């Protein structure tokens, strides 16, 4: 049992990071209907912004973290204005292709400016372990939960209580109706990209803490996709739940399934996709996704 928990908790912590990336994914999808292939690259760029601020410019870490979120918000808006806005009204798959272009642009920018080396954040967390229910857990994992929760609650409150958040929910519901009622849809698409980038940057900082900051962090975008599907493409809460489910199951599969046979050696990698298929067979719109009723 102790062993099970000591495996599950880091798994869930990584799941919280998946959840944040998935949240960023859902934010964009919900508000503009775009499937963002470059989500992982937003995480990558976010982690490097924080690295530049905290190490290269020497800003205290927590301040750098806040600044990172702010700057990524602006970058997100910039990307939307420059690359996505001209595509309004075009076939949705062409817009998806644009995100592939973003994928190339962002990852090559990181490569050009930072090269292929490993970087570390300053140690901003106590290094001793915390005792939770009798087992020692590295502090970085608890920090994952806390920051993920803070960001998620922030996004949730934004959607629940601010005017812009409510407007964004309205365009997710019916864009044309919202626009005719005077909602500035274009601006809100920018806000959605900004928020998504900020949330992803938060995930990037966490990922950089758990792993290390390097040019390859973008692969996390792929790992978050099963989380998005399991939770449902339109549900913010679903993204977090999906992330936790995937992260936890992945870790458990790694310990308890992989040693069973050599065929299952790297099962951890595909296990989320097996879960994804199973969930889709039972619930075609994910656990919390919207089921749109179609009429002829």
């Amino acid at each position, binding site marked *: 049992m102790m062993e099970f928990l000591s495996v599950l908790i880091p798994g869930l912590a990584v799941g919280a990071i998946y959840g944040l990336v998935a949240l960023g994914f859902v934010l964009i999808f919900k508000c503009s209907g775009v499937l963002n292939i470059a989500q992982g690259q937003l995480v990558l760029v976010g982690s490097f912004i924080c690295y530049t601020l905290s190490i290269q410019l020497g800003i205290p870490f927590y301040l750098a973290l806040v600044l990172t979120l702010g700057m990524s918000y602006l970058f997100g808006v910039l990307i939307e204005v420059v690359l996505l806005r001209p595509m309004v009204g075009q076939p949705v798959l062409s817009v998806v292709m644009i995100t592939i272009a973003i994928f190339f642009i962002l990852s090559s920018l990181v490569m050009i400016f930072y090269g292929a080396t490993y970087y570390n954040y300053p140690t901003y967390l106590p290094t001793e372990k915390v005792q939770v229910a009798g087992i020692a857990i590295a502090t970085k994992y608890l920090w994952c939960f806390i920051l993920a929760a803070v960001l998620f609650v922030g996004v949730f409150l934004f959607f629940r209580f601010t005017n812009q958040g409510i407007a964004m929910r309205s365009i997710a519901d019916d864009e044309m109706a919202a626009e005719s009622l005077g909602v500035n849809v274009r601006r809100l698409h920018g806000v959605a990209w900004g928020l998504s980038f900020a949330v992803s940057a938060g995930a990037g900082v966490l990922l950089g803490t758990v792993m290390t900051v390097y040019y390859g962090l973008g692969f996390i975008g792929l790992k978050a996709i099963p989380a998005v599907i399991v939770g449902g493409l339109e549900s913010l809460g679903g993204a977090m739940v999906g992330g936790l489910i995937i992260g936890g199951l992945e870790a458990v599969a790694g310990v308890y399934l992989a040693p069973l046979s050599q065929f299952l050696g*790297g099962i*951890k990698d595909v296990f989320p996709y097996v879960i994804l298929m199973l969930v889709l067979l039972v619930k075609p719109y994910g656990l919390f996704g919207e089921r749109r009723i179609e009429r002829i």
Partner: protein
Amino acid sequence: MRRKGIGKEWLVSILAMMLVASVALVGCAPSEVPTPAPPEAPTPEFKGEIVWGLITDFTGPLAPSGKDLTAGDRDAIKYINEELGGVAGVKIEPVVIDCAYDVSREVAAFAKLLDVHKAMYVGLISSSSVPALIGKATEKQIVLTGSPEPAGLFAPNSYFYTPFPMWADMQLGGLDWWVENEWKGSGSPRVGIASIDAQPGWSHAKRTRDHCERKGYTYVGEAMHPVAVVEQSAEVATMKRLKPDIILAVSHDTGHLTWLREWEASGTPGVAQIHHWCLLPESTLKSAGTSAEGVFSYYPFRMVGFDQDNTGLRLLKEYARERGWDLPTPLYMMGFTRTLMIAEGMRMALEKVGFENLDGAAINDALSQLKGYNCLGLTPDINLSPTEHRGYEYTRLVRILPGAKYEPVTDFIPVPPLTPEEKTGEYYKGK
């Protein structure tokens, strides 16, 4: 469907400019290839030029390794061209192609190096490119080097060579040394494998299993992690259950990093570890921090600052200073030594058949006769033969110290010899 918000003319003009610029540059590019780069280079001294192809990664997941490897290749070529006046008076012209760890691009790059650049030799980087290209290289008679993969080393009539032995052998040599000198326990030592779920990992596990059986060690099993890795708590838990005394780890740099950190966090002291050499670059070690201290790795070359000075080491010191390094990384050394080895073979071929008749088969014949060459004193003697394409069968263990440094703990120690069965490509297939 008039779109609002973008100046279409502006975009069209930008696009047109970029297209024109790129077309112009593409058009110029091939004509640049044969031109010797520095105008002051004393071209008349050379009898001619040989093109060497280097397939490498400057982008993609192997980028850190690719940069070091190619830097080593380049420096050795620079040394040969500038200090030695080329290979028997013939200049080496390197053509570097970035393939971003994509097998089909590597195959295309190989075709391009042969057909467009008329390369006489191709240096590879990724392990998967070796089995993909070995057949074509043998057909077209082009000498290859790359990471020491059994698919290349033990193929029939292989054109593939490496100076040093296979990864698994170098770690197993280290393992034998560790059992004799460092192991304090009684009974048979328990050996575990922590590796990447990819070909090097599985062939390593198979080789280790058989080696342990022969030596009377207990092989406890393996913990395999997927290629894309965030953390390895699950793999660490699997390994802890197996209770090993020593762990052999094979992965990419990120895999080693996450493994070490997770292993440290799991609080299991007293287990020795031997890691693959891609842990050794400074930025990787810095990132691993305290978790890497005391861990073994291998560096099967003479080392700047530890060994008695010789030509090779003096040269390396100079090149390392130019690059701002204390110690060249193992991958740089791999590039440096493999280039010297191939150049030596090419020199022998040139002496035998002359520049006009030089072809891949001649280089291959000469290389397979190469005996007693030690890469300017950087390696033990390289002895190649038509049936043995690994230059030497030694390794050298290093221990990682605090502050991202490492020091040698052994001189060159022999790696375990291979049985005839283990000298076939088939042995390493499957699990």
